[in-house]
């Protein structure tokens, strides 16, 4: 699923665009240690963690799309890190559960 398709499903906006970024699965989590331990490659990460360290964890697990919930603002250092690491960021007013439901055509991520 492309970033634009994800964006449309969650009624969000693209904060950081990355050409060709897409997701095959979805993982929902707000604890970075949990995400690092359980999220799989090519997932869309649905989270409220609007922090630079989220991008670092994405690079470790191979996630290339982050969906930030509750319209939390993306800090400049997080946006810069995402551009540098080719991680797209979508911001949605939805909660994590609502966003997960909206993306339910994708299978769950996990390893």
């Amino acid at each position, binding site marked *: 699923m492309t970033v634009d398709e994800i964006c449309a499903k969650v009624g969000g906006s693209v904060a950081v665009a990355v050409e060709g970024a897409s997701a095959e699965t979805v993982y929902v989590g707000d604890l970075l*240690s949990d995400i*690092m331990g359980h999220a799989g490659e090519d997932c869309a990460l649905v989270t409220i963690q609007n922090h630079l360290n989220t991008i670092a964890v994405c690079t470790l697990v191979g996630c290339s799309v982050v969906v930030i919930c509750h319209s939390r603002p993306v800090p400049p250092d997080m946006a810069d890190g995402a551009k540098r690491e080719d991680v797209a960021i979508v911001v949605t007013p939805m909660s994590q559960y609502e966003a997960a439901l909206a993306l339910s055509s994708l299978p769950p991520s996990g390893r």
Partner: protein
Amino acid sequence: MKFDLHIHSCLSPCANLEMSPSEIVRRAKEAGLGGIALTDHQSARNTPAVAECARRAGIACLCGLEVCTAEEVHTLALFDTVEQALAMTEWVYAAMPKRVNDPDTFGDQPVVTWDDDIVEMEWRILAMGCRKSIPEVSGKCHELGGMYLAAHIDRSAFSVYSQLGGIPEDGNFDAVELSRTADESEWLPKAGGYAVTRSSDAHNLDDVARVWTEADVSEFSVASLKAAFAARATRISPRLTRF
């Protein structure tokens, strides 16, 4: 005495590499601080260097680390001696993921000497939390003779409020910290009755001592600061209205 209880050195992956122990101490002394605490993420391995620089400069120093707990809350464990801080570090290390740091992803983590030589690069990912909960970390810190603070409680990430919605009753903190921009009128009522500090959380030299805490203490030690906290005899600097 004015002091800054939350300063990162170059060992912290997110800190500027200019944060050498000698420069931190020089900047703190120039700013008129009577005491500092070094608090790198998950590690006190640069406290021997900072303690030596502080000794040479005639400024008091506590040895600490900023422990990211299982709840992913940032907390400060502060000690009088390098040995206590390194013992705490070993305990935290044993509860951390055994993944190797990628400097390109998280940043460099040099362990340095007092005169700025690099000893080695820390291999653990210091940006990650450990598996110990706040009550466990608090207990270990106090067992080793330290004092325990909840860091930047006002921040929207890695704080007791962002992760737990408030100050946990079983945290057994000695004080709580406000960040440099926190509005006292909003946050003092949310301090859970604890004494409040304000520290720089400096990750680059320009931020050292930009804010501070002050207390009438005869010595800069865990015991005297804990007594000042218990007596609510500390004062904090005004907040910064912009970075």
